[in-house]
């Protein structure tokens, strides 16, 4: 057996095994370090601060948990949110994240480490990313081997697709959910492989943790049954599958029902019915297998299988009937929007209005996964070559997650792990093939062929010296197991002649490919670092821009405004804003809000949308009815902050139109030509809307007589700006990003405020006449 280069032969297998395991541990530690470190850009560039929107709520909830204990948190009724409806927080959240932080907080404090709860929250996501890397390693190890596992761990550790949801400060459910997802899958694969009830139970426990942590648990709820069903259909039913699935389903479902927010959903909603159906099917199949084991008649067996099908069909009909009867909730709108990307825009604008629910743009696949996305299919193909039960899982996962990632941007997150796993399998196969020193035997006798070969399958442990005959067999086995890449090459080569030896000759070709592969990895690291530091590490509470000299300029309008609210308004002053800012107002300003990012009540949001898109006199009664004291809007026109409320305004109109189609109509907010304008030619409905008036109130004055320009829309704003009768400007932040208006009290004389205002400005009132209560008798 020829070798491209020689390997040391004087090492005992034990030494090799010990060294490699030490190296693995060191590598995993370094990967964890890299995963954590790359997520700290946000802290280094800005500060230790909670990011974005949802994390602010999670942070607030965690504070309640840490301060008042778990039971108070469980029973927490947040009367400052969704004023005046309030929110039963304990029953409407996934408490896993807060509970995790709370446990960490209490453990640290029990150890007399007085760590601030905010820092725990900020650093939770990076910490768990290290665990994710480890669990991905475990998962991939089950698919191929340790080296592939290490590669997968590196990939998941720094892939931007996952970093985007787990930078320091991004204190969201996804921060721990991806770890739980991967670990649940690992346990499931392990349970399936071993048929162990212990691992099945572990799967269920981690499934429970996942259910408690993230709404995306439904992904597991459907992935595992889908895998089981596929295995049954492939004729791979086994007692291992039966044990693993039954223990997972029974314990996992019961456990998941303990989460108040989930409650009876696992037995009442369609999303969970697949798991139940497969559970039932497994019992039937198991029963059929049992009967088959005892009965020999083939006819009987076929009848049995017929009955299996009949029972299956009956089950489906029963399911349909129950759904029709209303016992099982039909699919929700969020579910439909997964299949029809236009569905949400038509029927549930509240979902469509969220940018992360939009279909994914192609470049973002590259942005989030770089070269992994290219070798991801290769990894899936390699799974096909071996196609053990666990490989089927990866294939299904890959197909399903790819589809979902294409439908919704945020589901890129669930795709990332499988891409990392599949890419690691492919990449590791490539490296295995090219690092392996074994060269194919050339039929023409050569000097190399004569030399006694030392077989070294794969890269881990050089096997003991064997005869060349054995080596051949081993090499053949290699070709089908570890050296898959060469196998693929073989399959693709047109000749297909067995006589011609296939493989890699010489060191140069090896060096070339390996150098290229290392180059790809290197660029991947550079890309990930670059994307992480520039795109995904912005807290979005604090904005950064560059001064002319290149130094960083921090725009801190949000916190400026929220702290203004906190310090200058009464504790119970109700603030109305679009729902995007609800959590931040609650978290930073500590004031009641009308609507927030937990978009559970569409009507309430539509009410705010209506108030924002109506003229002042229509909006005022709405504001009074909801006890609104302040209205907060985001206006980017001065410095060109494009995520402002005027750009979101059409969603407010659409959502309001969904509830009040007679009063609010979207076309009215466009010009006759169908343009969305804010300048002189803006539509009357647009110009009279509260949102427009609040945005551009006194904006033109800022330009001192020059033409005022909205830098987001790139349009020239009229020189005489809108006037406000029912609101007073209370606060405008430094860069005008946040503007806060105070709602005026009712006029003491009972006039409408418009009249009162014109009176205050000294305008003459039109002379009125006595009301003719009756006709004068002539």
């Amino acid at each position: 057996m020829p070798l491209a280069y020689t390997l040391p032969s004087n090492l005992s297998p034990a030494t090799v095994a010990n060294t490699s395991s030490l190296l693995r541990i060191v590598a995993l530690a370094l990967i964890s370090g890299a995963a954590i470190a790359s997520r700290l850009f946000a802290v280094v560039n800005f500060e230790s601060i909670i990011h974005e929107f949802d994390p602010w709520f999670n942070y607030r909830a965690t504070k309640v948990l840490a301060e008042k204990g778990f039971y108070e948190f469980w029973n927490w009724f947040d009367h400052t949110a969704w004023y005046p409806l309030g929110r039963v927080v304990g029953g409407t959240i996934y408490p896993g994240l807060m509970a995790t932080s709370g446990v960490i907080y209490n453990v640290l404090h029990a150890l007399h480490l007085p760590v601030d709860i905010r820092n725990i929250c900020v650093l939770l996501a990076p910490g768990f990313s290290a665990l994710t890397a480890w669990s991905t390693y475990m998962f991939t190890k089950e698919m191929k081997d340790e080296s592939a596992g290490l590669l997968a761990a590196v990939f998941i550790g720094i892939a931007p697709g996952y970093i985007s949801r787990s930078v320091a400060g991004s204190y969201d459910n996804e921060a721990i959910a991806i770890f739980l997802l991967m670990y649940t899958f690992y346990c499931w694969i392990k349970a399936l492989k071993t048929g162990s009830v212990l691992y099945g139970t572990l799967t269920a426990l981690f499934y429970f943790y996942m259910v408690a942590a993230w709404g995306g648990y439904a992904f597991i709820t459907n992935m595992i049954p889908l895998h089981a069903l596929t295995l049954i259909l492939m004729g791979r039913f086994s007692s291992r599958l039966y044990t693993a699935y039954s223990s997972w389903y029974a314990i996992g479902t019961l456990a998941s029902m303990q989460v108040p927010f989930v409650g009876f959903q696992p037995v009442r909603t369609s999303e969970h019915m697949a798991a139940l159906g497969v559970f039932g099917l497994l019992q039937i199949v198991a029963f059929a297998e049992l009967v088959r084991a005892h009965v020999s008649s083939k006819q009987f067996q076929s009848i049995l299988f017929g009955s299996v099908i009949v029972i299956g069909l009956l089950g489906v009909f029963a399911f349909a009937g129950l759904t029709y009867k209303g016992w099982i909730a039909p699919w929700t709108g969020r579910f439909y929007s997964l299949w029809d990307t236009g569905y949400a825009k038509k029927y549930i604008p509240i979902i469509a209005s969220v940018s992360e629910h939009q279909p994914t743009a192609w470049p973002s696949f590259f942005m989030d996964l770089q070269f992994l996305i290219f070798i991801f299919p290769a990894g899936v193909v390699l799974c096909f070559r071996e196609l053990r039960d666990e490989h089927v899982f990866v294939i299904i996962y890959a197909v399903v997650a790819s589809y979902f990632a294409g439908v919704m941007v945020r589901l890129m997150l669930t795709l990332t792990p499988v891409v990392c796993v599949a890419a690691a399998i492919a990449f590791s196969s490539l490296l295995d093939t090219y690092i392996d020193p074994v060269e194919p035997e050339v039929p023409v006798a050569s000097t190399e062929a004569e030399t006694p070969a030392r077989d070294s399958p794969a890269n881990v442990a050089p096997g003991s010296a064997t005869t060349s005959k054995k080596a051949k067999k081993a090499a053949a086995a290699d070709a089908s197991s570890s050296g898959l890449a060469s196998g693929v090459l073989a399959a693709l080569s047109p000749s297909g002649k067995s006589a011609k030896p296939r493989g890699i000759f010489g060191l140069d070709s090896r060096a070339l490919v390996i150098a290229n592969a290392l180059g790809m990895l290197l660029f991947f690291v550079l890309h990930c670092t670059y994307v992480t530091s520039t795109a995904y590490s912005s807290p979005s509470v604090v904005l950064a821009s560059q001064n002319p000299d290149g130094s960083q300029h921090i725009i801190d309008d949000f916190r400026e405004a929220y702290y203004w609210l906190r310090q200058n308004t009464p504790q119970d002053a109700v603030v109305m804003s679009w729902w995007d800012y609800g959590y931040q107002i609650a978290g930073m300003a500590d004031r009641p809000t009308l609507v927030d990012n937990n978009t559970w009540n569409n009507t309430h949001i539509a009410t705010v949308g209506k108030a924002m898109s109506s003229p002042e006199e229509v909006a005022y009664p709405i504001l009074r009815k909801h006890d609104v004291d302040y209205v907060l809007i985001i206006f980017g026109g001065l410095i060109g902050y494009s995520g402002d409320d005027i750009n979101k305004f059409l969603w407010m109109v659409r959502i309001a139109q969904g509830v009040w189609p007679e009063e609010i109509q979207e076309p009215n907010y466009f010009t006759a030509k169908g343009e969305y304008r804010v300048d002189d030619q803006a539509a009357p409905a647009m110009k009279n809307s509260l949102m427009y008036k609040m945005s551009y109130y006194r904006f033109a004055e800022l330009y001192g007589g020059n033409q005022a320009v909205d830098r987001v829309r790139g349009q020239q704003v009229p020189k005489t700006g809108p006037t406000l009768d029912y609101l007073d400007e209370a606060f405008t932040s430094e860069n005008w990003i946040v503007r806060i208006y105070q709602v005026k009290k009712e006029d003491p004389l009972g006039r409408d405020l418009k009249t009162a205002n014109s009176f205050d400005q000294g305008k003459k009132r039109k002379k009125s006449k006595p009301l003719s209560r009756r006709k004068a008798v002539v």
Partner: protein
Amino acid sequence: MRFLRQLLLPVLALASLALARSSTGDSVLILLDPSLKKEDFSVFFGDLEKKGYQLTFRSPKDATPEIIKDDVAQFAHVVVFAPNTKSFAADVTPQSLVSLLSKNTNLLLALSPKQTPLSSLASEFSLILPPPGTPLVSHFPKRDTPPTVIPVDVPATHDIISPNLPPVWFSGVPQALGNNPMLVPILKAPPQAFASDADSDKGADALVEAAEKSGEGLWAGSSLSLVTGFQALSNARATWLGGVELFSDDFINKEISKGVKSGNRQFASDVAAWTFQESHVLRIDSVEHHRVNETLPRETYTINDRVTYTTYISKYNPELDLWEPYSGIKDMQLEFTMLDPHIRTSLPPIAGEPGKYSVTFRVPDRHGVFKFVNDYKRKGWTYLTSSTVVPVVPPRHDEYPRFLSAAWPYYAGAFSTSAAFVLFVTLWLAGDDREPKKSKGAKAE
């Protein structure tokens, strides 16, 4: 605390017996037109001073004393007897007069047929004045005074005015009333009276015709008001007099019929008492709410709790300068509101406990941020508004009922399954171990 206050108040009242009678203060600024003499109103002003008011006189064109200084109202009451003044000092504008109302300063304003800044201010109070130069005219009953000097019957039973007053002499401009609920008509015009620009009745037909043609309403009849009160949301009061002569010594001493003095003096005193917040002044002393069988309020209530809401109301007694518990309100209501009232119930006075109004009700089966709203607005009376926010929460995790009869099948199921499992394990472990071998063998096949 309440007890202490009840004890202290009479003492304080005795000490301040000589002081003003108004519930808001005793300083009165009188803007008196130079054309009017202080002596002509000596009875009215004298009555006020007798009651304990400190009167400060100022010509409308004087700069001092200011009515508002540093955004603080300097007087508790402002009387504007300047019906003919066309231009006021800079600090007396319609706007500043309105802003006085939100600073809880009371106003007494006199109008005249002339067009002045005040007549344009009147329209802000939903008073609709006839065109300039059209005073109220009436030819009935037959008398020797000019037709613009009219004896007006005072309503026999009126909240604000003393009962059974003789008619009062009136001369001035009538006001038609807009549909503002804050208006409190005090004196209505006689049915035969009308507003006309002519001193004689020659033009009367022409006036009616003009009104018909142009579609204007008619400034005539008893729907016109001569003295109109206005109770602003801030509880400050403003009273518009159709003519300043109503309060003059001349009219006060003028006889209505032989030997019967006019009611002007008492009328003026009653109007001033109402305007200066002496009479018909109420306040909410305190508001309490708690669960039945408890005494302290809770931060939150649970749905379906039985809750008692109590409010204590006092009425101002001008005789003693004292707030006295008042149980005279029979039609007060309490609303338990979240966006809309979920519960609206009467809030009756409790017999035997003066000033206490209380009601017990069941909190609705709906969680949210509720408000106890007591919004009592009656014409002529101080507005009583109180709003107490209280969150209503669902039961805590340990407050739900347990061991329901409906749950027994589940308990039975759980326990029987557990028992069956134990039994099965026992049998399995204690059973013959040939069985599993056989099944293994079967599997191997």
